[in-house]
């Protein structure tokens, strides 16, 4: 039984702080649709954000919400999930938050395959501070700290997550909202570390410095440049240059960290001959 999405929002906290044309609202809607269709219990769901435009979303969401320090959302979330594995823990982060200042926490959370779902709003820029380049800013782009164009190569964060040990990786865009919702659902359902990268437009801090017009034009750019993973498999690296590969990029069964820890506790307690770890049968 699905509900009105408003019922997941703290309506008294609106209007939101995002600029006209920002893609964050579209990503947030996809998240709420996924939560709604999965019928997650708001009381049993924790949503953790870092610092930045996207991370501020947590303040609008009627769940247990935690707005942490810059880059550290995954480390906080790790503590929450390990303390109470029965809670659904979702992390909202941006490209700067997750891949620059939070890069170390990102690869280690992925390596542990701890059951967190990371929704990474990738707008290719530090928006809140006014448009500085991030590790996901495409090379040769302009930013307030790259007035002559960036000379650094960018990460493929989905590829990084996969190689670090994430058991689920997907990428969608704010044009492909049905796909994005489906990826978030699968990410939440996956028992392990899941990354869903949502390509989102920042017309204010990225678009207008990089010859892209408004938010709608940037969404059309996503439509024109996205290539589904199945089609991409048939294409050469040259053909894929500058394209965004979308879809379910990686899925693999792997032991989940908090489940492993519970097993460890059971093993230690059994060895110690202490508290019974299996329920006693009968009376």
């Amino acid at each position, binding site marked *: 039984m699905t509900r009105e999405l408003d019922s997941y929002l703290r309506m008294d906290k609106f209007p939101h702080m995002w600029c006209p044309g920002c893609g964050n609202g579209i990503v947030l809607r996809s998240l709420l649709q996924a939560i709604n269709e999965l019928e997650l219990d708001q009381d049993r769901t924790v949503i953790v954000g870092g610092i930045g435009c996207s991370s501020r979303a947590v303040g609008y969401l009627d769940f*247990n919400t*935690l707005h942490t320090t810059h880059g*550290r959302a995954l480390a*906080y979330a*790790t*503590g929450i999930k390990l*303390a*109470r594995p029965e809670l659904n823990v979702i992390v909202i982060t941006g490209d700067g938050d997750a891949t620059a200042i939070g890069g170390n926490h990102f690869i*280690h959370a992925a390596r542990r395959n701890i059951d967190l779902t990371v929704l990474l709003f990738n707008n290719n820029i530090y928006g809140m501070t006014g448009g500085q380049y991030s590790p996901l800013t495409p090379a040769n782009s302009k930013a307030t700290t790259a007035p002559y164009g960036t000379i650094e190569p960018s990460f493929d964060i989905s590829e990084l997550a996969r190689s670090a040990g994430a058991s689920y990786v997907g990428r969608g865009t704010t044009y492909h909202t049905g796909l994005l919702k489906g990826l978030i659902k699968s990410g939440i359902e996956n028992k392990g570390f899941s990354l869903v990268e949502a390509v989102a437009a920042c017309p204010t801090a990225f678009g207008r410095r990089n010859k892209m017009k408004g938010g709608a034009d940037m969404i059309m750019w996503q439509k024109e440049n996205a290539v589904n993973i199945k089609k991409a498999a048939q294409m050469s690296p040259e053909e894929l240059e500058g394209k965004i590969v979308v879809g379910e990029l990686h899925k693999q069964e792997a032991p989940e960290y908090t489940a492993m820890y519970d097993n460890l*506790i059971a093993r230690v307690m059994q060895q110690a001959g202490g508290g019974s770890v299996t329920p006693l049968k009968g009376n």
Partner: protein
Amino acid sequence: MSNVLEMGRLMQGNEAVAEGALAAGVRFFAGYPITPSTEIAEIMSNKLPQVGGKFIQMEDEIASIAAIIGASLAGLKSLTATSGPGFSLMQENLGFAAMAEVPCVIVNVQRSGPSTGMPTAPAQGDVMQSRWGTHGDHPVIVLSPSSVREAYDLAVKSVNLAEEYRVPVILLLDEVVGHLREKVVLPAQEQIDVLNRQGPETPPESFIPYTSGAKGVPPMANFGDGYRHHVTGLAHDETGAPNNSPVVAEELIHRLHNKISDNLADIIIDDSRFLDDAEIIVLAYGSTARSARHAVKEARRQGLKAGLYRPLTLWPFPEQKVLEIAKKAKTIIVPEMNMGQYRLEVERVVGKHCQVKGVNRVHGELIKPGEIYDTILEVV
């Protein structure tokens, strides 16, 4: 089992911290290896699973304190332990815990600094950092033990204070106390006062997360218990929502400080010897207080009116007591394994009531009783 405890056992300071934390109900530890505090992590990794608790070795100290804050928000009493460089890395999230009022305990076993310094050598150079290390005006409680038994007792006290006042508590050891081995007799579990955080008494619909409760501390709802609310390091109103109003910010920062300053009698712990007629008082903490005790005893044997004052709570500073002492004394001697960090605070408080003199060493070795005794003779 209890017989063994009654007979006493040889125990290290770091081990006593771990045992005390467990006795106080700590069930979550996140940490990163660093000398000279690593034993605490090693012991917790061994013992926590035995009692159903969780240990995790994080990727760095920033993540370690973040993880314990997360675990505390989810309801577990939480601890981390580190030393100098790691303590520096923890400052960012220590401020978060102060601002968002998340109970947690950070053990810092001080070593010689600055920077990597002398990793295995003792120092007391983090006294000011423990008070003011994170940016902004923030409340904090800092306790410092001088013996293995005191490390145990103050570990219990740290956890209790963190839970009761919803504040990060720093348990500040120095390498000498951390690695010291002494025979200790530990109290039985049932003799230990264990305090738990105050939960909300209102139903979720009428729960306002940051309204003052008993002692000025807001009742705390754990994540997952049905009290959905927002927690942030931004300035926030009573609902926890970010708020930039000057009035709201001013009230918030004052309330955070008042919950400590209004309850000093609860929070300040100290100890003294021969103060009644003392004219020369040695004010010392941590391992330096052990040398100070010897020096004062020797002075008494020689007929000198010497006394010892030992703050176990370093911060908040025991102003009232120090002022009271200063009014009767001629000189207060403050020996420290630093350039005089705590002495500055003593000077600020005593003003012109008496002379203040430091005995300061930063060479990575402890201060010997003779060095303090010589200073007593100098000022007679």
